C-alpha cells in the first residue's frame, strides 16, 4: 500500500514536499497505525497522536482531501494512493504538525465554562434528564479541530469568525439550564463576524469524527438571538 505524506522540517527543508512510503496493510489497520509504520521507517517524520481511540483529539489530519482523526479512520475506507496532509489553513510547524493557537484562542473567547450568579446549593444543582439531554451532541467535542480547519469561513476570517468548534461550545453553555449568563453570552456573539460568518456550508458536520453538528448549534444560537430580540 502506498501512502504519500506531506513533509516539511524547517531545520533542513527550504520548502515542503510529498514523500511516498510503502506500508504493509494488516487487518483492522487504522490510518494512525499506517503513520506509525511510516515513522518506524523514517523517524524524522512527525505527527501528533496519543490515545489511539478517538477521545484525546490529537491526531487530526487531512487525508485524501478530507479532515479526519487518524486513529479511528480504517485504511480500508481510503482510496489509494493515500495522501496525508496537515490541516488546511493552519501554519505548519513540521510535517503534519500544525500551529493550533488561533483555534484555541477562539475556543477561549466564548468563555467555555459554566457561569452562575446564584450561590451554590450544598448538594448538586439538580437538572432533569430532559434538560441534561440538551447537552448531548455538544459536550462530547474533543477539540480536535477537524471542523474549524475545514470551514471556508474560518479560512477567510480566522481572527473574526469564531469557527464551528468554538460556537458549538458557546451553545453547549447556552443550552445548559445551570448556566446563568445567557444575555452576556449572546451579547458577546453579536456583530457580523463572530457568529454570522457561518454560511451553513456544513463541512464541519461532514468531517466531525464524533458525529456532532456544529451547524445546528449555530442555528440554535441565531434562533435564541432572534427570540431575545437582539
Amino acid at each position, binding site marked *: 500500500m502506498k501512502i504519500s505524506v506531506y513533509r516539511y*522540517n524547517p531545520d533542513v527543508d527550504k520548502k515542503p514536499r510529498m514523500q511516498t512510503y510503502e506500508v504493509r496493510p494488516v487487518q483492522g489497520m487504522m490510518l494512525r497505525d499506517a503513520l506509525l509504520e511510516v515513522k518506524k521507517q523514517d*523517524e524524522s517524520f512527525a505527527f501528533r497522536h496519543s490515545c489511539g481511540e478517538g*477521545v484525546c483529539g490529537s491526531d487530526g489530519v487531512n487525508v485524501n482531501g478530507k479532515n479526519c482523526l487518524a486513529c479511528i479512520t480504517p485504511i480500508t475506507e481510503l482510496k489509494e494512493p493515500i495522501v496525508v496532509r496537515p490541516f488546511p489553513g493552519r501554519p505548519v510547524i513540521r510535517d503534519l504538525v500544525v500551529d493550533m493557537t488561533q483555534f*484555541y484562542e477562539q475556543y477561549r473567547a466564548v468563555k467555555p465554562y*459554566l457561569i452562575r450568579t446564584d450561590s451554590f446549593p450544598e*448538594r448538586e444543582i439538580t437538572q432533569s434528564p430532559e434538560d441534561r439531554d440538551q447537552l448531548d451532541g455538544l459536550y462530547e467535542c474533543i477539540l480536535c479541530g477537524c471542523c474549524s480547519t475545514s470551514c471556508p469561513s474560518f479560512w477567510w476570517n480566522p481572527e473574526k469568525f469564531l469557527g464551528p468548534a468554538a460556537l458549538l461550545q458557546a451553545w453547549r453553555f447556552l443550552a445548559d439550564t445551570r448556566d446563568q449568563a445567557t444575555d452576556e453570552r449572546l451579547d458577546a456573539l453579536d456583530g457580523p463576524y463572530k457568529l454570522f460568518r457561518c454560511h451553513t456550508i456544513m463541512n464541519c458536520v461532514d468531517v466531525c469524527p464524533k458525529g456532532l453538528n456544529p451547524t445546528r448549534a449555530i442555528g440554535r444560537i441565531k434562533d435564541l438571538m432572534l427570540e431575545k430580540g437582539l
Partner: protein
Amino acid sequence: MPIPTRHFDALIIGAGGAGLNAALQLAGAETSVAVVSKVFPTRSHTVAAQGGVNAALANVLPDNWHWHMFDTVKGSDYLGDQDAIEFMCREAIPTVYELEHAGVPFSRLDNGKIYQRAFGGQSQDFGGDQAARTCAAADRTGHAILHTLYQQNIRAKTHFFDEYFALDLVRDKEGVISGALVLEIETGEPLLIEAKATLLATGGCGQVFRTTSNAHINTGDGCAMTLRAGIPLMDMEFYQFHPTGIAGKGLLITEGVRGEGGFLVNKDGERFMERYAPRAKDLASRDVVARSIVTEVKEGRGAGENADYVLLKLDHLGADVIDKRLPGIRESSRIFAGADPIREPIPVFPTAHYQMGGIPTDRFGRVVIPARYGSEEIISGLYAAGECACASVHGANRLGGNSLLDILVFGRLAGKDIIEYVRANPHRRETDPASLEQAMARLTRWERTGDGVPAHQLKAEFRKCMEDHAGVFRTEEVMAEGYGKLCELRERFKDARLADQSKVFNTARIEALELENLIDVGLAIAVSALNRKESRGAHSRPDYPSRDDINWMKHSLYYRDGDRLDYKPVRTKPLTVESFPPKERVY
C-alpha cells in the same frame, strides 16, 4: 549560552485531572502557578476514563462513606493505608458536588440528581448487597471532568506551558527541589522553570506494557524523574490489568458495561464468573475478574479462532440503555472490534491499565521517604498527585471508579497544601549549576552520533519483555528471566542513537527521552515484583498462591541506585473510625 529561566510560586508538571484540579486551587488563591504539559491539556489521559467517579452520594441506593471505605480497604487486599482511604472516601462527596458546580455534565436521575451506577467491588453495609456508587456522565466521565477542569482553569487564567516536556527535577545548593528543566517541543529549546513548590502529576506508565489501555503519552515521566532524584517508588509490583480490553488491541471497555448488567461468557456460552465469585460474579474486584479470564483461556475455554479471548455480552440490555448509558463503548466496539454490541458480544481480554504504586506521598500530596530515625520525612517543596503518586489508597488492587476520585481529591489537597507551603517559604530558590548540568545531560546525550541501535527498536523489545515477564500471573522463574533481559536492555540503551538531530518538534527525541523513563519504571515494577513472595491483589504468584500478612503486609520501596529495595509498614489506623483488620478476601 545561559538557559532562559522563568519563576513561579508553584510548578505543576502534568495537566490531567490531578494537575488541573491543583492548578485551580492555586490560581484561585492568587499564587502564581505554571502548568507544564507535554500535550495540550485536554489531550491528557484523564480524558479516556469512562465509567465514573465514586462517591457515597446515596442517590440510587443507600450508601455512606464508611461503606465506601470498607470496600476500598478490602479491594486493596489490606495493603492500602487506612488513614488516606478514610480521608479520600469522606472527601469524595464534597469533591463530586464541587465538580458538578464547576459544570461537569453528569447524567441525571428522574429526580434531577447525579446518576450513579454499580461498579465492581462495591457493597452496602460492609460487604452486603451491591451498591451503586459511581457517578457517571454516560461512559465519558473522564472526558467530561477533564474538559470542565480545563475550562475552569481558563476562567482562572492559569498559566499553561503547552507542549513542553519535563526533562528532570533540579535542586538548589542545599539539595532542595527548585523546579524543573523542561523542553519546548516546538522549538527544541530548553527552559528552566524555577518554583518554590513542584507538583508531579504526570499520570501512569501503561506504555511499559505492549498491550495497554493507556495512551502513547503514558510513559511514567514523573516516576522516573523521582527515581533519578534518589527518591524511591512505592508498591510498583501492583499493576492493574483491566479485565476487559478489546482483545488484541488493549482498548478499554469500561467496567460500567458490567455495572449496567452486561456479563462475561466463555466459548461454551457459560457465565464463568459464577464459578470464581459466586456472590459478586462479574462485579468482583478487577484482579479477580482478570485472573478468571486468563484462567478460562489457559484452560482452553477461550472463544475465537485462536481461543484467546472471552466474550462480553450486553445485547440483552437493549438498544435504549446502550445508547443512553454506554454510547462511547458502542462506538469503540464497532470501530475496533467490528462488533455492534446491540447485536453481538465484544471480544475481550485483560489489558495493562493502572499503576497502583508510585511516588510515596502523605495524604496532603507531600512526597515522603523513610527517615533514618522516626517514621517518615517530608521532602520539602516536592508534591505528587494522581496516578503517578501513591498515597496509598489503592494498595494491591484499585477499585473501579476510585482513580478519578484519587486524582481529584489529592490534586485538590496538594494544591491547597502548596498554598500554605508557599506562604511559609516565600523565598526564591536558586538552582545549583551542577544540578542543572546533570539535567541538561539527559538532553545532550542524544546529540551523540555514530553507530548505535535505534531507540524505537529497543522500545518494542522492552514492552514485549514486560508483557511476557510481569503480566497477570508471575512465577519466580519467569520474572527472574525478565529481570535479566531488562538489565541487558538497560545496558544496550546506553548505546542507543537518534538519527534525527533536528530541533523543531522532534518527536523521535521525545520518544527516546520517554523510553529512558519507561525502562526505569519497568525495572521498578520487575524488581519489586520479583521480591514479593506472596499473592496479594494484582500481584499473583502461582508459586506463592496465598497472601502472607505476617511477612508481607508492608509497602515496597524501590530505589534506582543498585535496584535496591526497602519496606515500610502499612498504616492500618484510620483517622476517626475503627481499623478494618485483614480478612480473607472473597467476592
